[in-house]
């Protein structure tokens, strides 16, 4: 079962690589469904990863690190909210600005505080999220197929990974089965109607932006506390943009987000594992093409060649109560 073992390993790294994408894409889902576009996912994740790395190192507590990550990410979200909801500025411009401010300040502050070339010091075991071994994972390891799937694929991930996968149905439930979710979606489609019903558009959008901050914070914490052992300069490396692509690719729906992120995670895992691998019929695929594939797929989808991605109607438009 050599082939099967390879498959399990590939699936395992797919799950690992798609975890931050799922969290960040769900974060984007909350704000964009409320009508606030957010291309600052990248910056928020980076800021959160940095905060997590710093605080987890200083306090030697992984939970304080996670908390700090969420706090920083929510603060950045509130800046975005203030600019785009209260001040009715351009949401795109605000997102771009946040990405730059964070990209610069994480390096400057990291260098000033730790002097390790923009990195935070490596975290010990207590400062990181360890892998969770599901019960009996070791016992069934030798059982063919089912045991291998259980112990090799389902078991042994970071708690944040399990959280990310749980957040998919949870987000669906919040958005589609609660009053808050209904209003949040309504405010992204027709804020005027929500306002007429006597519900504050501004407060709803702020809450959506805060939800986004929390999820982005967890995504960032995953990078520096689980995937890595500390923060490294620019460690998001475009993951925020891939998450944004996944969100659009998923047509702003929670279930699709899971699959889109798994697909993009798989492409990443595959590209890492099979650099210079010769495919039957196609031959060698340049690694650069594999890296660009998520972006190319998103462009093709956006162009309406595979289905049609229709964004929330009021997305990107600041709400003006009365002229």
């Amino acid at each position: 079962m050599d082939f099967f073992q390879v498959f399990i390993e590939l699936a395992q790294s797919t799950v690992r690589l798609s975890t931050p994408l799922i969290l960040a894409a769900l974060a984007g889902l909350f704000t964009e469904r409320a009508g606030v576009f957010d291309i600052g996912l990248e910056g928020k994740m980076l800021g959160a990863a940095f905060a997590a790395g710093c605080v987890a190192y200083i306090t030697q507590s992984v939970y304080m690190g996670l908390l700090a990550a969420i706090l920083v990410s929510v603060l950045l979200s509130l800046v975005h909210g203030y600019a785009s909801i209260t001040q009715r500025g351009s949401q795109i411009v605000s997102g771009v600005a946040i990405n730059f401010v964070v990209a610069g300040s994480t390096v400057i502050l990291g260098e000033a505080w730790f002097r390790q070339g923009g990195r935070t010091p490596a975290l010990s075991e207590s400062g990181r999220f360890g892998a969770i071994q599901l019960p009996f994972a070791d016992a069934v390891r030798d059982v063919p197929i089912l045991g291998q799937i259980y112990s090799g694929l389902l078991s042994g991930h970071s708690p944040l990974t399990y959280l990310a996968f749980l957040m998919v149905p949870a987000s669906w439930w919040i958005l589609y089965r609660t009053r808050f979710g209904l209003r949040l979606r309504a405010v992204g489609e027709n804020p005027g109607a929500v306002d007429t019903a006597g519900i504050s558009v501004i407060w709803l959008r702020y809450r959506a932006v805060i939800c986004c901050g929390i999820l982005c914070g967890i995504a960032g914490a995953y990078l520096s506390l689980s995937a890595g052992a500390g923060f490294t300069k620019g460690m998001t490396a475009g993951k925020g943009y891939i998450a944004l692509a996944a969100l659009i690719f998923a047509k702003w729906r929670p279930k699709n987000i899971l699959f889109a992120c798994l697909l993009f995670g798989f492409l990443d895992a595959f590209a890492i594992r099979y650099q210079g691998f010769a495919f039957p019929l196609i031959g060698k695929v340049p690694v650069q093409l594999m890296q660009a594939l998520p972006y190319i797929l998103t462009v093709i989808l956006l162009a309406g060649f595979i289905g049609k991605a229709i964004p929330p109607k009021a997305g990107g438009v600041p709400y003006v109560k009365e002229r």
Partner: protein
Amino acid sequence: MSVPHAKLPAWAEYGLIPLVNLAVAFLISGLVVLIVGESPLEAAYHMINGAFGRGEYIGFTLYYTTTFIFTGLAVAVAFHAGLFNIGGEGQAYVGGIGVALACLALDRTLPWYLVFPIAILGAAFFGALWAMIPGWLQAKRGSHIVITTIMFNFIAASLMNYLLNKVFKPLGSMSLETRTFEAGGQLPKLDWLMSIFGLSVGNAPFNISFLLALVAAFGVWVLIWRTKLGYEMRTMGHSPAAARYAGIKEAKIIVITMMISGGLAGMMALNPIMGEQFRMQLEFVQGAGFVGIAVALMGRSHPAGIIPAALLFGMLYQGGAEISFEMPSISRDMIVIIQGLVILFAGALEHMFRPAITRLVIGLSPKTRDVAATKGA
């Protein structure tokens, strides 16, 4: 909202408000310098000295300025048509192909003044091509230009990485770059211009593409405010519905605007490739496409504002290098922070100080107060 809606005089609209926004951005940057434990005043001194202290420094400052004029104009042209082109980075990168092809093919046979126009056309062509696709997709297929241009930045990075690896890299070379161009692929420096002011350009790569940038800025002004096409672009930017009603072909304008924007971004590649390195390297754009966003916002999308804004960022880039030399804890990433803050305050939060300034300006000048009063009555 009880904000007076009176129109501000031009000096306040185009001078005071951007200055206040800029001042706030710099104040917060100063706070970051304080947090790092250095003196903001000392940093400012090193910055200004590093940017203007010597002829060579000024040459470097103007070299960066050249780059930012191109990318700033690119973003501004798209802004006028209501399009946000975040793809300047990718378009400049792909524009490099045009420059590299022209230089690699002709540098051994033709003098620079014949290669230069061909390289300009090549850069503009490839940049325009890379911007045309998102433009076409927005015009015909309704995909959002912001998202597509972001995606195209990443695709461009992968594409260029591949091309430098497989096509442009000379045999046996390890580093990802083309061969060094001969004399035909090297632009002359503008030492004569500097020597008029009694300065020496030294090692600074201040070259003739600076003049091209100034010509481009004038060209953009003519295009936007003195041609039918520019009028149609502005109409669409102000009100797409009005443009449609007036019979302006929306799809055509979007595609043409994006091609002009991409062409300008692509021409940025001339400066580092033909003017400084004399070869195309990996990542030669170095974020200049993104700086263009800040420059266009600062300069209020007007060439007369873009040139000083580009000079400001040129100063930040050159002076920032000097700061990191003198104060090691402030690396060049400080500029990225300032750039972000400028985008935030001059772009997303541009209306934050407007009510207060409007009240102040109208309160100060009796003439506008009367106008506001009659309007209110």
